[in-house]
């Protein structure tokens, strides 16, 4: 099993009264809440954490793309990946990814991913998410009625740009390019492995199964609640006539490791509550615009991750309002919608405990969901760099050795990067102390 150290890069200094005084962490969050000095510190510390994770033995480092929010401050994951490509010499660069429909023309994604694959010597995983409705539709103004068609057309263009032997014309509905000629080209041939992050869309399962892409279920809600989604995906794999190779799937999970369970609960309570209560404080009006879901998903009643987060926050606020007869709380999502850490642990949103406990639960999760890639969130919310590194080190040194070989005897990871041999890969060379 491969474990990727995945960073969301949340803004760490949202005020204590954020949920009562602000309606959403996304789209219309008050720009006055962002302090660039915090941003300077935050980005540097977060890059430190990713580099540290790579140095202590995680198989890969993972990042993604979001806009106009304090939940995840990577409008351009490729910028972060470029830095990591130089400073993390062996880890896979798992970019999950570029929201294809937001790039006009999407050939930009083909070019930048090819750059990353060249810089890293072939260590890129190319992730293509549709993107959340807040990012794609509200922040970037895409039309929900055409978003998915635009997304799929963009991926077709990227794949053809990476693999075509000659310059070609691309006459799409949304991209019309007389000359497509992708320079540079990726080291990995015919192209880097493709992973598709998803939030529960049925059509995405079928498409990944049929196309042979790796499906990443990016849930905030723990493995206990993920069974239905992953069973749906594996059913599609079976129907596509493909083997149930666990490496064709992954799952995102929050982890908090300490010397004991009691210590873990003490250490990770605050950052987890910060994440689930402030970073997921999404106004429901931004979570489910018509057209974003496919009709098959609507018919199935499947609920997206963000939609669920917004709904649960709304329901908690409504419950409190009902009890206190303060109807206004239903609209304002007051601090009363707070979810406790105990609830998060009980529901499996966060796996906490000693290294052995975490390893046991992780193996249980991986077997239940049948996944070969774990997107491990060892930093969440407003966790300090020191605590993130402590968590990361314990995970790397005491948990990963227990889970790493889970699928080794049965399956090969066909979705992992195939870099140049290390002897052929460039590493940053030190400059001479005194210029000549």
């Amino acid at each position, binding site marked *: 099993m491969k474990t990727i150290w995945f960073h969301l890069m949340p803004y760490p200094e949202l005020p204590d009264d954020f949920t009562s005084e602000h309606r959403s962490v996304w789209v219309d969050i008050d720009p006055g809440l962002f302090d660039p000095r915090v941003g300077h510190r935050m980005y540097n510390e977060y890059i430190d954490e990713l580099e540290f994770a790579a140095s202590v033995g995680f198989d890969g480092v993972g990042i993604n793309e979001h806009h106009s929010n304090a939940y995840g401050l990577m409008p351009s994951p490729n910028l972060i990946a470029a830095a990591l490509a130089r400073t993390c010499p062996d880890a896979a660069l798992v970019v999950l990814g570029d929201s294809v429909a937001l790039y006009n023309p999407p050939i930009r994604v083909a070019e930048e991913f090819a750059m990353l694959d060249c810089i890293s010597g072939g260590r890129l995983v190319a992730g293509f998410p549709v993107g959340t409705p807040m990012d794609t539709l509200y922040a970037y103004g895409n039309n929900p009625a055409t978003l998915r068609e635009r997304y799929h057309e963009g991926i077709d263009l990227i794949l053809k740009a990476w693999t075509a032997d000659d310059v070609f014309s691309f006459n799409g509905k949304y991209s019309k390019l007389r000359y497509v000629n992708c320079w540079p080209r990726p080291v990995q041939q015919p192209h880097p492995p493709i992973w598709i992050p998803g939030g529960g869309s049925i059509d995405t399962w079928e498409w990944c199964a049929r196309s042979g892409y790796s499906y990443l279920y990016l849930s905030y809600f723990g493995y206990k609640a993920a069974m239905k989604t992953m069973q749906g995906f594996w059913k599609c794999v079976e129907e596509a006539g493909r083997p149930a190779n666990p490496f064709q799937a992954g799952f995102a999970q929050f982890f908090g490791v300490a010397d004991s369970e009691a210590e873990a609960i003490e250490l990770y309570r605050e950052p987890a509550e910060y994440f689930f209560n402030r970073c997921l404080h999404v106004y429901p009006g*931004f979570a489910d615009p018509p*057209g974003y879901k496919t*009709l098959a998903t609507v018919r199935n009643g499947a609920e997206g991750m963000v939609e669920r987060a917004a709904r649960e926050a709304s329901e908690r606020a409504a419950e409190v309002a009902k009890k206190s007869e303060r109807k206004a709380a239903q609209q304002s999502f007051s601090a009363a919608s707070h979810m406790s850490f105990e609830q998060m642990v009980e529901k499996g949103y966060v796996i906490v405990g000693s290294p052995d406990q975490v390893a046991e639960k992780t193996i249980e999760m991986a077997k239940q969901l049948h996944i070969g890639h774990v997107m491990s969130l060892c930093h969440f919310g407003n966790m300090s760099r020191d605590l993130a590194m402590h968590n990361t080190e314990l995970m790397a040194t005491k948990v990963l050795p227990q889970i790493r070989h889970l699928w080794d005897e049965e399956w090969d990871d066909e979705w992992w990067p195939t870099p140049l041999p290390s002897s052929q890969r460039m590493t940053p060379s030190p400059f001479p102390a005194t210029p000549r």
Partner: protein
Amino acid sequence: MITLVPWKAGSLEIWEEGEGPTIGYVHGMVCAPGRLPFVAELAGRGRHVVAPSLPGYSATSPSSDIRNVHDWVFALSEIVDRSGLAGCPLAASSTGAMLALELAAVRPEAFSSLILIAPLGLWRDDNPITDPFSTTLSGQRALLTNDPAVTASFFDDATDGPTVDSMIQRYTGRTATASLVWPIPEFGLTERIHRVSCPVTLVWGSDDRIIDPSYADLFAESLSDCRATHVVTGAGHHAEWDDPVAVAAIVDAALG
């Protein structure tokens, strides 16, 4: 009477009521054929009302060909011909009124006159149009009419058929609206509106929470033959749903 006629790869739904001179009605964000009292009210005034459902709404098939306002205008042009509305007067609401103006700009003979209820299509930075999709379903419902109860036939699940089907139909209708208004319902009409040569009557709900009634002045100034502006007191954005009698009377009077 509601009929389905073949159209493209699917069907076009046309609702007809009454006898007399023909007038068309093109719906806005709310479409519920057979259940809009405004149409019955017009029919009761001796009009033959022809109300096609636009692509994606109600039983008219969604069209994968529609990607932008140009495609929408082309679709409306075909629907007008198919419904026998070419050269007739047309009442249209909200997004439908925006499309009617766009069509009349490129095809000035399409309608003999227009009665437009709170049309979209123009934009003022100092008074932007409310985004009807930055809210929940119930929030949107409250934005569209002054009395949310009047749009129950669109927003509430059917009690006389499969709930999932009515939910899907509402979803595709709302998706069609989103495709028209997202992210800003202004596609250059201001450069074309001078080409609308037929007489136009404007109708606005006094309590419109989507587009401020002051936009009526902007439309009136931009049109070459705006005959009158009527404000319906107590009505919201879709005034024909809030006060079908008052709006039907305005339409009737405008037609003479």
